[in-house]
């Protein structure tokens, strides 16, 4: 088993993916072939956008 310190880019990606998942519910992607970590996604679900649009209040 290979252990080594993360470089700066790896550390940023890891922190960003975990924080995005914990704070904003962003998906953490899995490789469909072996289920390993494949980054995170910035995709926003349709329902989230449409729900926000449909709840825009009246403006005065």
């Amino acid at each position, binding site marked *: 088993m*290979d252990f080594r310190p*993360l*470089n700066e*880019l*790896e550390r*940023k*990606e*890891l*922190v*960003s*993916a975990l*924080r*995005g*998942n914990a*704070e*904003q519910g962003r*998906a*953490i*992607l*899995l*490789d*469909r*072939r072996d*289920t*390993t*970590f*494949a*980054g*995170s996604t*910035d*995709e*926003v679900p*349709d329902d*989230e*956008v*449409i*729900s*926000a*649009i*449909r*709840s*825009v*209040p*009246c*403006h*005065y």
Partner: protein
Amino acid sequence: MAIAFSDLLQALKRCAANLVRPPLATHDRKAPSTLVVAEPTPPLEPLRRIVLADEVSRTLFAEFAQHRQGDRGKEEIGWDLLGLRRGSEAVVLATLPAGTKRDAGSCHVLFDAETQGFASRVVRQGHRQLTMLGVVHTHPGSMRHPSSGDYRGDVQWVANLRGQEGIFGIGTADGSPDGVSRQPEVHRQCLGELGFSWYALGTNDRNYRAMPVEMTPGPDLALALRPIWDELEYHAARLDCLARQLNRVTFDVVMGSRKQALAMSIPLADGTRSLRVLMEGREIRYLVVTPDGPLAADYRDDRIDHAVFVLLAELTV
């Protein structure tokens, strides 16, 4: 979702290896699924600036001016704003108009949310990262700040947005009609007599915060929908139902027989054919697209959702 930490480390090692490999040839469309973007999205911070794509800014000024010349020019008008929320900034990349079915007067405007909601599906087909950022609306006089009535609704509504903050623009027509563009304050853009003042509001804010606004070269991704907005308004409810019920439905703006038209495509299970619906004005045409060319369906029904399911049943082998 639970992921073993060792898996994360293992994948990060693989990602790093991918980053040092030679770039893929442009014709190779099968990118490895483990390749991730090198620039991670920064975590959300409180908003500190608004960035408008230049076409978005031009759309707002042009449609505000056009609105004032129209029959309903004394009414308030507005737009939903879609874009990217990242770090401490909101980048606006699309505007959805209030629509002709809006409920508006000289002191209020309530957008046609049904059509805007469906339009957001169409815009986001190729831009899944777009999110709802906020709202622009106009005031009839010279009040360049959102009203107390605006605050009561907005402070609750922003809980629906990423970062629990939204951006808000107020349009007024109280400048000098000299046709010159200027930015007299960091949160205000003017063109002739028209101006937009920009603010942010979070769920815990007691008032709107004036927000510096900048421009960057970029598109209004919803501008292509303007020529078919009438079709969107007429069919939005039924098309939205279809988009929810059927997988892989896509929408396009295409050239019709007289003007631009809204097209919907539904791939069939055989993998070679698709059902295509063209909407131009009130006219609806149903086509089956085959490898040998399109076939017009001899079928008329203004209820698109009903018609689609009838045709899908006919086409099922």
